[in-house]
């Protein structure tokens, strides 16, 4: 337990250093240095709203060229090329895990849990190509994702112990200045990090940081630590954008029914013709 705590601390320290380096790098992110978010009634940065990533992280966290998808879907199923979101573009897999990632990649068009409409886990929920809504209250922050109706509660006040391993993790949050920092633990080993087969074990520990950078954008970063799979913590970061459409709202994407034929089709009664 004590070791775990120490690891946590060093992971977030690393994230801070990396974030600091980044801030100097581009004029856009330097805004977050000066931007001060509007406040909620209890004086916290106001993160309420509907947000969405606008990148290809859900296809592949690392820099990648465009590539084909399932034959039947032609261009529709192809993966767009994209800039990576991993700091340094390297994911530090342990040797065995690197082999597993390779295998996952080869099988990605059948093995990705997203295909079955399974809960996406964290941080993947954040950068799926669907919006999510933050509903902020003093004691709890609700994050409601459109994909699969996934949702999670971030405990800001008294956090109970996690009762069991979960798909969406056990989230405990706090504000550091304008940044919402969320410590997420208690994961299953069943979710992937993207459609390219990047994965983790049940030892996954994620520290997320949500920092307002303008009225309509947040900087999101997640430091990922998993001693069973990675040799060191590593960090992804990206902007999240506010959905500005009039009456924007998170709609229902209950995708179970879209996965049933795939999952249970072989068990359907065969009619004799």
């Amino acid at each position, binding site marked *: 337990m004590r070791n775990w705590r120490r690891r946590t601390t060093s992971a977030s320290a690393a994230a801070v250093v990396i974030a600091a380096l980044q801030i100097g790098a581009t004029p856009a992110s330097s805004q977050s240095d000066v931007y001060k978010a509007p406040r909620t009634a209890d004086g916290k940065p106001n993160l309420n709203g509907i947000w969405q990533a606008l990148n290809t992280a859900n296809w592949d966290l690392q820099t990648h060229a465009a590539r084909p998808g399932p034959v039947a879907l032609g261009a529709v199923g192809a993966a767009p090329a994209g800039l990576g979101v991993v700091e340094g573009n390297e994911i530090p897999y342990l040797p065995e895990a690197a082999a597993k990632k390779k295998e996952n990649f080869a099988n990605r068009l059948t093995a990705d849990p997203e295909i079955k409409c399974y809960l996406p886990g964290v941080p993947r929920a954040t950068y799926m190509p669907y919006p999510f809504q933050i509903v902020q209250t003093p004691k*709890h922050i609700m994050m409601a994702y459109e994909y699969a109706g996934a949702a999670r*509660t971030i405990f800001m006040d008294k956090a109970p112990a996690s009762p069991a391993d979960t798909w969406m993790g056990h989230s405990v949050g706090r504000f550091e200045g304008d940044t919402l920092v969320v410590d997420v633990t208690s994961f299953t080993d069943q979710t992937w990090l993207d459609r390219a087969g990047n994965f983790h074990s049940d030892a996954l520990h994620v520290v997320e940081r949500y920092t307002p950078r303008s009225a309509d954008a947040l900087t999101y970063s997640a430091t990922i630590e998993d001693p069973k799979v990675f040799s060191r913590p590593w960090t992804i970061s990206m902007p999240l954008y506010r959905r500005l459409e009039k009456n924007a*709202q998170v709609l229902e994407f209950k995708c*179970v029914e879209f996965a049933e034929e795939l999952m*249970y089709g072989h068990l359907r009664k065969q009619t004799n013709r």
Partner: protein
Amino acid sequence: MNHRCLTTLGGLISAMALLAPGFAAAQSNTNATTKAPSAASIVPRTPDGKPDLQGVWDFKTITPLERPRELGDKAFFTAEEAAAWEKDENRRQNRDLIDPETGGLNYPAGGVVPYNEFWYERGDKTIGSRRTSLIVDPPNGRLPPWTPEGKVKADARAVTGRETQLGRPKADSWEDRPLQERCIMGLNAGPPMTPGAYNNNVQLFQSPDTVVIFTEMVHDARIVPMDGRPFLNIPQWKGESRGRWDGDTLVVETKNFKRETSLPGSSASTHLIERFTRTDANTLLYEFTVTDPTTWTRPWTAVVPMTRSEDPIYEYACHEGNHALAGILAGARADEKAAQEAAKKGSK
């Protein structure tokens, strides 16, 4: 909330669904999880002056949706009657005391009692008002008569339900199974929320322009805009909800259901009004009115008192753990195969 089930119990869900219209009959024990904190008739308020309804609310009770027929015109129990009824009903509901050979509760003799008592977390207490049903209107505490279309569906459901209870579920495809078994809709998650076998918990969140109704069953976060925006009129499984304040009562209007609500027999034309009123620090009065002219000959209203809970909402990853649905389908295929082989043997 000790042995809250974290994975799906398709069989259980199916069994519960079959109790319709007396899915009410499946309700039983409440243990109030609340240690009453402060003395509290003062309703707390959010900074914008609205009643603060936030927190986890527990809606389990043994009081049935519909008044048991044998109670006739009796709308309320005395304290003694409530205690006696509660005791009898808890015994009647106890799955461990039902012998499948002889049947009991709603289970036919020679049928299947899919889950033992361990799996249940239904209420074991009657509601505080000692009303004999959750339905307050019609005054007889019963669902209104079916429309002709509602009757046809109810009769068909009764037949398939009985077959399932006898161990012969109709399962040519997953589409023959109820939405609860497919983890698309929660048995009791609603809208509207109705006490059921387990996961009778909901958490409310309020920001200045949004309310979220987060039910434990099938992790449904129903987002309710409070800013007066129009309906989009697109069909969704849990409909489209819009909220407003009526004095100190939160009123949520929901329509545009895709197929049915979690109420057995209901149709896509359901129009639902839910009213949430915090009557004291530990009680949220939940009242709902269902108008579904396709199914019922008149609107009806139920009142469910919810009790504040200090426990968190658990993650109920229903679809992810749904081994039961594959098992039900595979079982049906195995039965067919066995029947074919038996027929072959017989013809030789």
